[in-house]
């Protein structure tokens, strides 16, 4: 596979005050693929995404679309086209659904493109139309997760960072969210780096995966390989 590498992390470290959470993570995401990061609680999955989007102090080399972003601010990184859907969904709960979507496109200047994308997003999330004037904080957890994804799409992102989309949601809702992610990837070539505790789902939806343990990449490979891997099966898949 000689695809273009959109995102590359090389020896990335990150810390929260005195506590080091990443001890040199190296991974890459190719243009148009869904990559997954698996691992137990505290392995550094969320921190890896936060290092990319610049919301944690980090070191090492992070290159996105040929540009080093390891010293850039979250605002600047969003402007490069990285949409981070954080843990807890990052819903602007006081604002309406429509306002959330509008702010997803905040850094864009192409009015017509934004209107087109509003329609495009509604194809994947038709129910948003009827709820557009409702305050986002009053949506259910699953709806908020989908709104967060829809809002990320409004950036017309080159890369979506999706943090634990299954957190606290019913299995049927989680399945729906992963179905939409796969659909977006297949139909629109959306590139996604998803962090997920539910390894089954993550390996199903992705083509490449990394297993984090204690702030390091312990295993990597295609998702098909990892599904067959004995230790991954025992530790993360449960069979």
């Amino acid at each position: 596979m000689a695809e273009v590498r959109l995102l590359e992390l090389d020896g990335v470290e990150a810390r929260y005050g005195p506590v080091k959470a990443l001890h040199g993570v190296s991974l890459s995401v190719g243009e148009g693929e869904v990559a997954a990061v698996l691992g137990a609680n505290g392995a550094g999955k969320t921190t890896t995404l936060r290092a990319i989007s610049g919301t944690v102090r980090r070191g090492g080399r992070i290159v996105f679309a040929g540009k080093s972003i390891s010293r850039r601010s979250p605002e600047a990184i969003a402007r490069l086209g990285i949409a981070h859907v954080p843990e807890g969904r990052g819903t602007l709960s006081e604002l309406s659904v429509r306002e959330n979507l509008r702010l997803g496109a905040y850094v864009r200047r192409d009015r017509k493109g934004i209107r087109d994308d509003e329609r495009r997003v509604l194809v994947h999330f038709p129910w948003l139309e009827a709820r557009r004037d409702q305050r986002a904080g009053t949506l259910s957890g699953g709806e908020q997760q989908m709104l967060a994804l829809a809002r990320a799409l409004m950036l017309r992102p080159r890369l979506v960072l999706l943090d634990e989309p299954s957190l606290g949601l019913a299995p049927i809702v989680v399945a729906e969210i992963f179905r939409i992610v796969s659909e977006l990837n297949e139909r629109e070539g959306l590139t996604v780096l998803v962090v997920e505790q539910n390894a089954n789902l993550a390996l199903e939806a992705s083509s490449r995966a990394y297993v984090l343990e204690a702030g390091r990449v312990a295993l990597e490979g295609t998702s098909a390989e990892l599904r067959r891997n004995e230790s991954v099966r025992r530790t993360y898949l449960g069979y």
Partner: protein
Amino acid sequence: MLLAFDWTQLAQQTVIGLSSGGLWALLALALVLIYRSTGVVNFAQGELAMFSTFIAWSLVHHGFSYWEAFFLTLAISFAGGVALERIVIRPVERAPVLTVVIVTLGLFFLVDGAARWFWSSETRTLPNAFSTRPITVAGVAFSIQDLGNIAISLGVVALLWLFFQFTKLGLALRAAAANPDESRLLGIRVSWMLALGWGLAAAMGAISGMLTAPALASFDQNLMQPVLLYAFAGAVLGGIESPFGAVLGALLLGVFVNLIGTYVDWIGTDLRLPVALAVILGVLLVRPAGLFGRRSARRV
């Protein structure tokens, strides 16, 4: 009994109450704006407004007309508010609330001291913004000044509402105030949004000050201290989280304080401020969120 009641006086006093309430509302709105983005009451807001009013006074004394000075001062105050946030508040942006409160208290004395240093402490006057002629509506005489104050304060409130509701920048300001971390991920320059909020608050305070001063026989550096207290009382009454509440609270308070001063002899003009303080205390005891304050979003 009912026939003997002076309805003309009631109408006049209500309008006078709305006039001062409107000016308190502008400062109350400034307080709410800062409170929503930083979580603290800016104790220096009144002194900043006083400083702006003195700038306007200086401009008038250098030959500008009242309205020229008014709009120049607005621009200067906005820029000053932005600069102040950049220089004084930015370093403590992520500090605990108490630190920020102390900083705004420090700012109170700093601005107050600066105004006393730049301008001597003698009393001074600003020309009237409006004609002092009365105007008769339905047989009742009102002062044009009061009606003008009401029109300007409500107009500013409406403009601000349109700005926050219907412009992208206004939307980003609201988002940055409520969810700074999430807003950053959307590419919103949160730190600059806070500075913009300080600029807007300073400009609103300036309007309040520049309309408060002409109504007085004379003013000095203590000009805005009672106004700050009334504004704070109004904001607490309406709910300090709610811009609408703060405006309505200040207007209600203006009418209430003026009517009670008119009709209850022993209160008169001397005891109006304690009445406002009693309102703060009463609201905090009975309904801490204020009349229109609401708790954060609930799931349905």
